[in-house]
């Protein structure tokens, strides 16, 4: 019982410490008395009284502290037994002393409480029956222990993953099961979180891609997982996969249909841009100011359409993990101003002022200039759209305390209500109250997040309804990627929207 020995040892150290503490006032009084020439008898008497009093106090405190694990266990037992009052379950997380031991013991109490009425049941037999039942389940089920060794699976798991029967037992879970999550909160993370902080837990993921060997099509499922610390038969974790490939693939095809439709737009768009360019070249200076203005607006409208088409296609690429970036060394001031030229022209026509406030001596950054310009343009586009009556939009770039180049786009417009802020970076999300008032696809921020994350940075928003919004993102200085550059081809680092996020969590805030 390692945990018990630990508790014993800690309790011993604690008691020793409090005892020493109790002696201190007495010793101090003794020293004080001797130095002032007070009679030794009086000093001794006062010191003894002092020591006794502090012993009473420290022992009281220490016993409370040392007995807290027992109190938690008692609470757990009272909580599960049927004749209780309304006592709450123990808050074991708050425990300092013997936390692991009590977590484990409390869990056993909870497990046993389900069986206590029928003491005649043979526990070994139950285990066997449970294991047999798991095998019969129609969907793939994995049970595994604390080291992620698979202890049991349903028979259907083999056919689902197209693996020979028997090949899963004893294997490491993630060697056999290749999952791709659309969020950062993966099964692996949840497992770690459970083992560090929980006695029991459940979790659900939707739209998880299950990658199969070779050229077999990827499946998509929902996954349900549950955790029981120190489960008696060793199955700490059980996860089941609910295949939803058919439904989810339909959604994906709908997305691919968007991709198809969008690229059909590209050909007329190419022509439109071409002819606008011809007009600009041939007619510049020959038209009256009114017509020049119209031509200018025609150009901006085609630019806007081009950006929209690029946005939609990039979202499809992000979702299919096909969006790749080539990071190279760039001067941020130049990249930022060049990349936002078209948006500046648009702002001007709409009567908005964009002010650049870029710190001098910023380090060069590692960016894919085209993609990062999309981020800047999406943020500026939002700022213009939602700036309301206010005119000023400010772009600020500084080197922040963590050594990232931090860029903020700030408007003083309508702002964002607090309750919708967490959803802003989701696909197709737009505030329902402003949806009819403003155009847009609800893809810009989703895409911007994917791009910034793939660059190793982060993006966030500060906003207050009625007071404007402040969108910020960070970029890595090029120097911090030097190590990685050594191992790449010499024209930059190629990264994908998902892959890079996963492997470089250390760069994230």
């Amino acid at each position, binding site marked *: 019982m390692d945990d018990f020995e630990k508790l014993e040892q800690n309790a011993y150290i604690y008691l020793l410490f409090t005892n020493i503490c109790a002696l201190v006032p007495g010793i101090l009084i003794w020293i004080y008395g001797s130095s002032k020439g007070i009679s030794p008898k009086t000093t001794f008497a006062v010191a003894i009284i002092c020591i006794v009093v502090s012993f009473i106090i420290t022992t009281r405190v220490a016993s409370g502290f040392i007995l807290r694990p027992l109190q938690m266990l008692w609470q757990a037992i009272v909580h599960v037994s049927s004749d209780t009052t309304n006592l709450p379950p123990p808050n074991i997380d708050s425990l300092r002393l013997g936390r692991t031991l009590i977590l484990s013991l409390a869990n056993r109490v909870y497990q046993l409480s389900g069986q206590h009425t029928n003491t005649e049941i043979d526990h070994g037999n139950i285990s066997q029956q449970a294991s047999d039942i798991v095998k019969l389940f129609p969907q793939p089920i994995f049970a595994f222990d604390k080291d992620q060794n698979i202890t049991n699976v349903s028979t259907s798991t083999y056919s689902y993953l197209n693996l020979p029967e028997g090949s899963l037992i004893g294997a490491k879970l993630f060697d056999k099961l290749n999952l791709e999550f659309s969020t950062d909160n993966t099964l692996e993370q949840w497992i770690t979180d459970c083992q560090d902080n929980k006695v029991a837990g459940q979790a659900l993921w939707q739209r998880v891609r299950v990658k199969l060997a070779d050229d077999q099509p990827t499946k998509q499922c929902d996954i349900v997982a549950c955790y029981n610390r120190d489960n008696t038969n060793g199955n700490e974790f059980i996860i089941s996969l609910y295949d939803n490939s058919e439904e989810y693939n339909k959604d994906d095809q709908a997305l691919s249909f968007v*991709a*198809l439709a*969008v*690229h059909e737009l*590209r*050909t007329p*768009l*190419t*022509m439109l*841009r*071409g*002819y606008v*360019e*011809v007009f600009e*070249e041939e007619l510049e200076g020959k038209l009256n100011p009114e017509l020049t203005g119209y031509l200018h607006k025609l150009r901006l409208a085609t630019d806007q359409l*081009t950006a929209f*088409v*690029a946005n939609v*296609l990039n979202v*499809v690429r992000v979702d299919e993990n*096909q969006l*790749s970036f080539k990071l190279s060394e760039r001067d941020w001031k130049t990249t930022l101003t060049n990349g936002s030229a078209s948006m500046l022209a648009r702002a001007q026509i709409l009567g908005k002022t964009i002010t650049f406030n870029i710190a001098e001596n910023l380090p060069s950054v590692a960016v894919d200039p085209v993609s990062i310009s999309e981020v800047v343009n999406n943020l500026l586009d939002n700022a213009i759209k939602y700036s309301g009556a206010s005119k000023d939009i400010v772009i600020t770039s500084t080197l922040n305390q963590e050594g990232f180049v931090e860029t903020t786009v700030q408007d003083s417009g309508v702002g964002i209500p607090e309750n919708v802020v967490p959803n802003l970076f989701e696909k197709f999300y737009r505030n329902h109250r402003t949806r009819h008032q403003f155009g847009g696809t609800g893809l810009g921020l989703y895409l911007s997040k994917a791009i910034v994350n793939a660059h190793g940075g982060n993006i966030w928003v500060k906003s207050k309804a009625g007071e404007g919004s402040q969108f910020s993102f960070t970029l890595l200085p090029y120097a911090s990627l030097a190590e990685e550059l050594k191992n790449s081809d010499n024209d930059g680092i190629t990264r994908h929207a998902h892959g890079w996020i996963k492997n470089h969590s250390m760069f994230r805030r």
Partner: protein
Amino acid sequence: MNEDQTSLPATPKRVLCVEDEHFINELYARALTKAGYQTTVVTDGEQALQEILSDEYDIVLLDIMLPSLIGTEVLKRIRADKPDLKAKIIITTNLELSEENRAAIEAQADGYVVKADLTPRQMAEFLAQLNV
């Protein structure tokens, strides 16, 4: 990058534009001629194959979706039949290709451009960077 005709060498570089969309051909021919290139236009794959094999061009702009023979097939045959081709072949397309397909094409071509990403003038500027 290199719009100024005076900065180009005396003999104009020859560009073969393989593209079945009339409007795009018109625009490319105009922009490339203006940038000092001598431009020839063909509109189907078989014809393109013959023209490219004649090896009289410095640059070939090759669309993928073409009548009679698709661009990727044209490219494949040329690389097989004429490994020492002088011309640089740039794939120009508006297709949305999967990464694998794109990588396969890029391995055989000298460049790859999404037409919608560049205006005709920008296309001419892009070709100037090829240093042919």
